[in-house]
């Protein structure tokens, strides 16, 4: 066992897949010689060579387009977005081209587009976004949001092995802040589409993912200590495909649901989850489905404003207590 960070787990996952399968290669801005803006691919070029660790021009559309072409030819490219905020530049090729390739032309496009998303790091509007909702609406894509060290490794390996395009939203706040002992002799592959019960509880379910999982766990712990109620925290891990069964199972158990996500509120993923619960478990609800999200604004630079705009543990706590008393 060795204690590794979320970032190191991710690095190990990509490394192991490149060792395992020659078709896996990495491309992106400064991923090669520089090792990536957050050093996820540090040392990769030296080990795997320039042909498998490719520095690209600053054009997200071109990078994804090149990856898609390689994927059609049987390769398994792993694209790095320097910040997930910039994936907007590749929105056209991802939604119009990549996501439809299998339907239009029977072409498999096994690419992974990965990169750091999320705030709490004073990154401001262009380096703090959580753009997953922008892709949730597109059939043909898979969306993965790891919250733990183990999942950072297990899910990237599963994403690389998946035959469909996967967008992999890492959380930059977690990169070096969470650590976990990972067995180095065991291959960790976490299947896509399966949620994880991060904390068992009976009185309320918090459905969440990515860094918000940790805030939900903090809130759950405080409620357990201070209120005597138990809160189930469901870490979705994968937003597409979404694990409806796990959500419904938990709703039927606790009958109260709070959905917490870091992204803004309007049109956020919480709305989709709410609709699914209404359709599949309406009669099991003992309260309205609540949301804890960011305010509908860009993420501000100023620390106090960022703290205000992004959802905090206290926000989760407040909503959870209101719902528990409903």
């Amino acid at each position, binding site marked *: 066992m060795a204690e590794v960070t979320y970032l190191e787990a991710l690095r190990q996952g990509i490394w192991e897949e490149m060792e395992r399968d020659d078709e896996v290669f990495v491309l992106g801005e400064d991923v090669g010689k520089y090792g990536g803006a957050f050093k996820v691919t540090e040392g990769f070029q030296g080990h795997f060579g320039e042909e498998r660790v490719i520095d690209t021009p600053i054009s997200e559309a071109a990078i994804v387009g090149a990856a898609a072409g390689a994927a059609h030819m049987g390769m398994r490219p792993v694209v790095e977005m320097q910040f997930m905020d910039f994936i907007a530049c590749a929105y056209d090729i991802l939604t119009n081209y990549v996501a439809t390739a299998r339907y239009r032309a029977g072409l498999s496009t096994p690419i992974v587009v990965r990169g750091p998303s999320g705030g709490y790091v004073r990154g401001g509007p262009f380096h703090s976004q959580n753009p997953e909702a922008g892709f949730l609406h597109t059939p043909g894509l898979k969306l993965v949001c790891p919250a733990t060290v183990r999942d950072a490794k297990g899910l990237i390996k599963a994403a690389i092995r998946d035959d469909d395009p996967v967008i992999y939203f890492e959380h930059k706040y977690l990169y070096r802040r969470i650590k976990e002992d990972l067995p180095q002799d065991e291959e960790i592959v976490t299947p896509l589409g399966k949620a994880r019960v991060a904390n068992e509880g009976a009185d309320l379910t918090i459905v969440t993912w990515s860094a918000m999982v940790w805030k939900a766990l903090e809130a759950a712990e405080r409620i357990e200590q201070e209120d005597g*109620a138990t809160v189930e925290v469901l870490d979705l891990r994968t937003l597409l495909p979404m694990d409806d069964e796990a959500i419904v199972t938990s709703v039927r158990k606790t*009958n109260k649901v709070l959905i917490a996500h870091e992204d803004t509120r309007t049109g956020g993923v919480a709305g989709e989850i709410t609709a699914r619960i209404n359709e599949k478990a*309406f009669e*099991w*609800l003992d309260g309205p489905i609540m949301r804890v999200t960011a305010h509908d604004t860009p993420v501000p630079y100023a620390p106090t404003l960022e703290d205000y705009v992004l959802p905090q543990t206290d926000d989760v706590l407040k909503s959870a207590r209101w719902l528990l008393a409903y």
Partner: protein
Amino acid sequence: MARVEVVMPQMGESIAEGTVSRWLKSVGDEVKRDEPILEISTDKVDAEIPSPAEGILAEIRVPEGETVEVQTVIAVLETDKAAPVSAASPPSPPAAEAPPAPPEPAAAPEPVAAAVAPAPPQPAAPKSDGAVQTAEERLRQRSTPLVRKIAAEHHVDIGQVPGTGHAGRVTKKDILAFIESGAPAAAAGPARPAATHPVASAGEIVHPTVGAWEGDRVEPMSKIRKLTADHMIMSRRTSAHVTSFYEIDFTTIAAIRQAKKQEFQDRGAKLTYMAFIVKAVADNLQKHPVVNASVSGDTIIYRKSINIGMAVALDWGLIVPVIRNADELSMLGIAKSIADMADRARSKRLNPDEVQKGTFTITNPGVFGSYIGTPIINQPQVGILGVGAIEKRPKILTLDDGQDVIAIRTMSMFSLSYDHRIVDGADGDRFMADLKRDLESFPEGAL
């Protein structure tokens, strides 16, 4: 396995519940989609309910004769024919039922309720006053889908469950605790309609305030005035009033009265038209029990006794002494009772029980000359007879040879206000037609 629930359908906009009148299928029977599986009746229609799916009737949750709210699950179909069929039919007590995936935490002690919702649970007393719900009662019935589902499964009236949620809302824990305490056993069953719809009483009736003008005299209502005011409003709110009018020819009775007046006087009684009317009404109430009845919740009480109230106008208000068992009295007895009651009413010597337990009321606006009136029902009765002025009027009669003549006849106009909740127009009119016939052909020998 797939289970499909059959619910009590809403058969009309204002229909809140329906009664299972007959099961056409038994547990274990195969049913096709849209094949009738039971008959229901609501206040407006009787209908056959088609099966929502093909399968096997796995459970009958509501036995014949029971009334449930719309959307209540009344049966369950098993669409997977291989699955075992529950033997529970008709429904065993809730405890024996296995609701699909019961919410487990029910049995566990619940510290959270105390910690999270510090407000003490208010005992949810059954609705004590008038038919109008208070805001609290409405709020308490506001509930989540889960609570409604549990309530339907266990036949619990949510209004009776003490709520600890926001604004007294009934939470899952509240209803599970209520069921566990055994309370629904009392609330369910035949007693339930009475509990859900308590017998209407005067309750809190608020009369709107009106500004007084200069020189006006404002004085508080007397007790009897206040009671009458409240009772009249309550009656209007409670009953579906309908009034029918009948013209009665009193010529025969007038002749009898003239002939027997002295005889009665010698025996200490005044023979009034009212004595004849009471006698004929008492006889006809016996023949038309629905007019001698009361509505209690969702039940009808057919009264065994025929106790006729007589509205007596007093200088200080209105009182209705009751002639008990009027059907058992002779004309002499009736005449004496009427005089005695009226006399004692005016001298305030009535016993309290002499103004109670009326089953039907007669009011006589005609004594003041009124042609006729439209009386308000004296709750909880369902009928009141108004008697207009009895006087000589021209009347067209057809003689035996077919010739029409205008004759001088002793005539009166009667009105019957009745409660259309249980007395239909045909019932009321049949009662009045019989009453008219009996009065117009009153046998002299009956005296």
